[in-house]
């Protein structure tokens, strides 16, 4: 939030040269010396000693505007303070730049002048102007308060005080015409630009006024003593902090999500690594915002595969009984979803609905909410809204700095100005780094988006039944990810950023959408342009580990201890690959164009996101406790691998329990049972019908093309 000032300083320097002959001049060195001597006794040094809060290291920002938030643990270790420069306004009052240090991290404040020092306390901030006040516990010996004369005669000079090589140095500068540049803004309101925070004096060294950063409005309010300027007292800030915490306990509840257990394989290890979204296994606590009496916006950026498993949503407000909520819809562009409360809420988050420009530099409160399971920790710090920018949908957003994640920003009326919400992206979902960074979303906009579900809801990111859970989209191809060499060899380096993306079609499933559209083996899929999706999505196959795997150990299955069966990955690639994940996120039914490089030209093929046929991980299965096996239907990718047609009978062994009847009889994972007691078996259900309540089973078992007969006797119950 503070970097803009550095730019501003550079601007001043640059523009100063342009003024040429009109440039005001400094008085003679003798006069300068006289002026500085006069104000020097009013300059004081503020030393803020930091401390830990519990185990939490203190954070601080440097002088006024200009510092990044830094880790103060080194200062604590070195037993030295953060230093600020200030001016004594009266016997007990000092003014300085903004001090963004939370009181809990402040051990003590000392104000010094020459060898004298006294204790001091924070005593409030200016509204709109960038300055803080300190109250001294007793008068500081040797220091003289500034005696302002607002109408003292010009010319005026500014006094700078800064530290260099451990020495405070004071110097005089001209007040450049640029300081009073007149700017007409869109709003028609004249603005007086000011850069820097300075004491303004005249030729006789009489203080005229105080300039603070970026005042708005053309006026003469900088004149006179800041002692009488409108101030937000520290007591007010302390009260506001308490109020904000109390309010947050009501309007920003902890929302507990309970999820159905993930299916084995569905949240495969590889996918965990690559997922940049929140990974919730079975339970998670996330913040929510009560946007109206019946609705809570849950700030959790969930993958469709996670949302699919939501079973229960409970809203916990401080001091109240938990309230159940029901999933309503998730937003396709934002990482949050809306749930309906079973009981109306009394306290509702009020959005700041005015012009954000009016809040610029205004003193606000920033709430940090940390949920560690059921533990809720809130911190409120004094903050200012420093700059604005254009963002999504060309709306105005507060700027968040790169080093800090946006938090909840409240104005002094207890209205929510902005809150952190993730912007979702569809492509590039399998990266090591986090792709979706939260943006500073004004609550007013969020309310607008959630009130138009027909426009913004994502129909493919909803809770599903266990059966529907692992449904994915497909076009019916197996892909090999490109690399620079492959891209060049296939003449697509120019359109795939040298193989950064693109997928080489290694197999096309018969009767699939791709087969219908004439996609062929050897074609290269380049990009997806989806309806209603502004940016084209490159086809990626990151995480294409399958291609690097060694041959499946069919020969070793007989020598392998049964306990290791579960660790043998299937010999075909996972159905949930990069392309299918991207299509799934686009949502079923969405029309898209696929750019395909085929026979030396790029062809555009029209598709609609279709559901992939049942795949191995979600295939209907039957677990026989008596036998100790789980069998699954032969799904499309399994049939491809074993070269089986739709009509060929069989169910595949997906699990063999150690020590079971089946394990003893030598059944191995990924073998296919084609017959039971002379009956051809086409799916898990038929298998079940044939084995339940039987005492004697003859299974015809196939390992690739080696078959054998397995006979198992089961005890009659």
């Amino acid at each position: 939030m503070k970097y803009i000032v550095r730019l501003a300083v550079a601007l001043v320097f640059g523009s100063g040269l342009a003024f040429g002959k009109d440039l005001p001049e400094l008085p003679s060195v003798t006069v300068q010396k006289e002026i500085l001597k006069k104000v020097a006794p009013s300059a004081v040094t503020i030393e803020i000693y930091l401390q830990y809060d519990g185990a939490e290291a203190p954070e601080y920002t440097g002088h006024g505007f200009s510092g990044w938030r830094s880790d103060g643990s080194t200062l604590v270790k070195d037993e030295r303070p953060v230093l600020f420069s200030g001016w004594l306004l009266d016997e007990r009052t000092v003014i300085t730049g903004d001090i963004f240090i939370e009181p809990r991290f402040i051990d003590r404040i000392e104000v010094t002048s020459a060898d004298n020092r006294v204790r001091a306390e924070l005593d409030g901030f200016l509204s709109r102007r960038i300055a803080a006040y300190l109250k001294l516990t007793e008068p500081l010996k040797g220091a003289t308060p500034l005696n302002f004369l607002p109408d003292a005669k010009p010319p005026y000079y500014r006094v700078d005080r800064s530290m260099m090589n451990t020495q405070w140095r004071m110097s005089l500068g001209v007040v450049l015409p640029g300081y009073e540049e007149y700017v007409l803004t869109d709003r028609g309101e004249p603005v007086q630009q000011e850069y820097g925070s300075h004491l303004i004096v005249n030729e006789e060294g009489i203080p005229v006024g105080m300039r603070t950063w970026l005042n708005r409005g053309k006026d003469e309010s900088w004149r006179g003593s800041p002692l009488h300027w409108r101030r937000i007292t520290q007591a007010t800030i302390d009260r506001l902090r308490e109020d904000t915490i109390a309010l947050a306990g009501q309007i920003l509840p902890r929302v507990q999500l309970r999820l159905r257990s993930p299916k084995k394989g569905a949240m495969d290890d590889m996918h965990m690594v690559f997922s940049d979204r929140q990974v919730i296994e079975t339970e998670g606590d996330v913040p929510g915002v009560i946007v109206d009496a019946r609705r809570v916006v849950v700030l959790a950026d969930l993958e469709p595969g996670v949302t699919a498993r939501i079973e229960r949503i409970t809203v916990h407000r401080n001091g109240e009984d938990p309230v159940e909520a029901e999933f309503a819809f998730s937003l396709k562009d934002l990482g949050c979803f809306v749930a309906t409360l079973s009981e109306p809420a009394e306290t509702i988050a009020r959005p700041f609905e005015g012009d954000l420009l009016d809040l610029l530099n205004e003193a606000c409160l920033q709430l940090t909410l940390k949920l560690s399971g059921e533990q809720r920790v809130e911190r409120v710090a004094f903050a200012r809204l420093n700059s604005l920018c254009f963002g999504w949908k060309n709306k105005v957003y507060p700027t968040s700095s790169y080093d800090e994640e946006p938090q909840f920003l409240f104005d002094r009326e207890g209205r929510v100005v902005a809150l952190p919400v993730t912007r979702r992206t569809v492509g590039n979902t399998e990266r090591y780094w986090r792709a979706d960074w939260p943006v500073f979303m004004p609550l007013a906009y969020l309310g607008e988006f959630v009130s138009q579900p027909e426009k913004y809801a994502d129909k493919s990111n909803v809770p599903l039944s266990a059966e529907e859970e692992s449904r994915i989209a497909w076009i019916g191809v197996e892909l090999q990810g490109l690399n620079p060499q492959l891209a060049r060899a296939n003449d697509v380096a120019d359109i795939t950023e040298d193989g950064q993306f693109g997928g080489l079609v290694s197999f096309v499933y018969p009767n699939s959408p791709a087969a219908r559209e004439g996609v062929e083996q050897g074609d290269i899929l380049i990009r997806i342009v989806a309806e209603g999706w502004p940016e084209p999505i490159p086809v990626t196959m990151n995480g294409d580990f399958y291609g690097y795997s060694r041959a499946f150990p069919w020969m070793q299955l007989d020598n392998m201890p049964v306990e290791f069966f579960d660790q043998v990955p299937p010999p075909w690639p996972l159905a949930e690959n990069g392309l299918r994940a991207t299509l799934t996120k686009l949502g079923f039914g969405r029309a898209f164009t696929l750019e395909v490089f085929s026979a030396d030209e790029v062809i555009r093929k029209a598709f609609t996101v279709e559901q992939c046929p049942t795949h191995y991980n979600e295939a209907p299965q039957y677990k026989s406790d008596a036998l100790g096996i789980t069998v699954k239907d032969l799904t499309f990718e399994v049939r491809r691998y074993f070269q089986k047609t739709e009509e060929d009978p069989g169910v595949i062994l997906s699990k063999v329990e150690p020590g079971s009847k089946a394990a003893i009889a030598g059944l191995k994972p990924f073998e296919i049972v084609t017959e039971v007691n002379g009956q051809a078996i086409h799916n898990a259900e038929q298998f079940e019908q044939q084995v339940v309540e039987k005492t004697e089973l003859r299974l015809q078992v196939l390992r690739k093309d080696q078959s054998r007969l397995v006979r198992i006797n089961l005890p009659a119950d």
Partner: protein
Amino acid sequence: MKPGLFSSALFGMLFLAVLLFVCHAAEMFSLARAGQPALASVEAPANAFDFRDVITRAKDQVFPAVIFIKCITETHESGKKMSVEVSGSGVIISSDGQALTNWHVVDKALEVRCLLYDGRAFHAEIVGTDKDTDLALLQLGMAEIDDPLPVAKLGDSSVLVEGDFVMAMGAPWGMSRSVSIGIISCTRRYLPGNSEYSLWLQTDAAISPGNSGGPLVNTSGEVIGLNTRGVIYGGDMGFAVPTQTIQRVIRRIREVGAVEWSYTGIQLQALRDFSRNMYFDATEGVIVAGTDPDSPARRAGILPQDRLVSIGEEQVTAITEEDLPAIRRTLGLLAVDKPAALGLVRGGEVMKLKITPREKGEIEGEELDLPRWDFTAKSINQFDNPDLYFHRKEGVFVFGVEYPGNAVSAGLNEQDIILKVGKKKIKTLEELRTAYDQAVKNIEKEHKILIAVTRQGLMRQIVLDFARDYERQ
């Protein structure tokens, strides 16, 4: 099969249950037993059975016929053509200079040299080999012989019983011969996946790497088996091919130079299997587990779960899996291209079917070295590479890749089936050789080539850049 039978990259150390080794490469193991002094001699009563006498006599009969064999063998396994020295033992079985050894000792040998106990050395020709039974018949270069050759007598392994004293002999270090003694531990040992057509003699006489191909001798001084396999982590277990099998195989080799097994494609299963707790009701015959796709058996209409009771006139029964090799041998020795009658029981009904076996043919593909590409290729063989054959019936695959090398850098893996090189479709080694020669000849113009492979049943493309000449570096 090669040494290190189960090369299991993926599952590595997980199952070292029983590691069989093929015993050559004498250099690997020191033979502590050789030259060890006899046990402290105890004065035996004059009329007692002098065990040492028996041993010495038997030993003296066979020792001179044991030969040391050294081969220069060509291998493509490590990704390039290499000649390596392989040594083993053998035994002379006829005065005209025929000697027996293991197939794996002389497999792919460019040159075979034999050394007798008395220092005479011969070049030998390979008369014939049989990979399935791991046997080879050599002919020593007779022209160089002046004195008659010592000959060992082949005995009858069928009369052996467990507990019979036997001696394992070999010549692991050249001139010196070694003998170790033990008993027959098992006369009918079945090792799944090792030797389709024969059971094994199991002995506790130490069989060490290097006496592969050496004789297993009874107390009468007759050869009753050929030492073939040892066990690394399994105590005293050695396995020898019994002379019953040897006799049959060398007869065929002498007649036609090979056994020429015939192929029916019937997959068999015994009636009882204690370890799998599986018992079928019948007491005779053998279960047809299944038939290979496209095989004579499938064409003949044999179905899984049929029970095979007779082959020609011969009744067959496999109560346990130990009975399977004999039945497979019977099937394997059926005349090629001549219909044979099979007696089957299907659903309680006895029926006869005619099967016309075909020649089994090669059971291992040819190999090809592609030095500039730093890999070797091999043609897919149904019996040697069933996993690859499943995906492609005719073609070539990456046999070995050299580290470091162009193929490795390009990401080419062993077991990748080569579909295309550039725009050329590849089905045979010859086509691959042509494509390679052209590419290498054209290297100044183009040093990259696109290779399409099938890996685990899925097509992948690989760009092979062979600009670097690893041979020269």
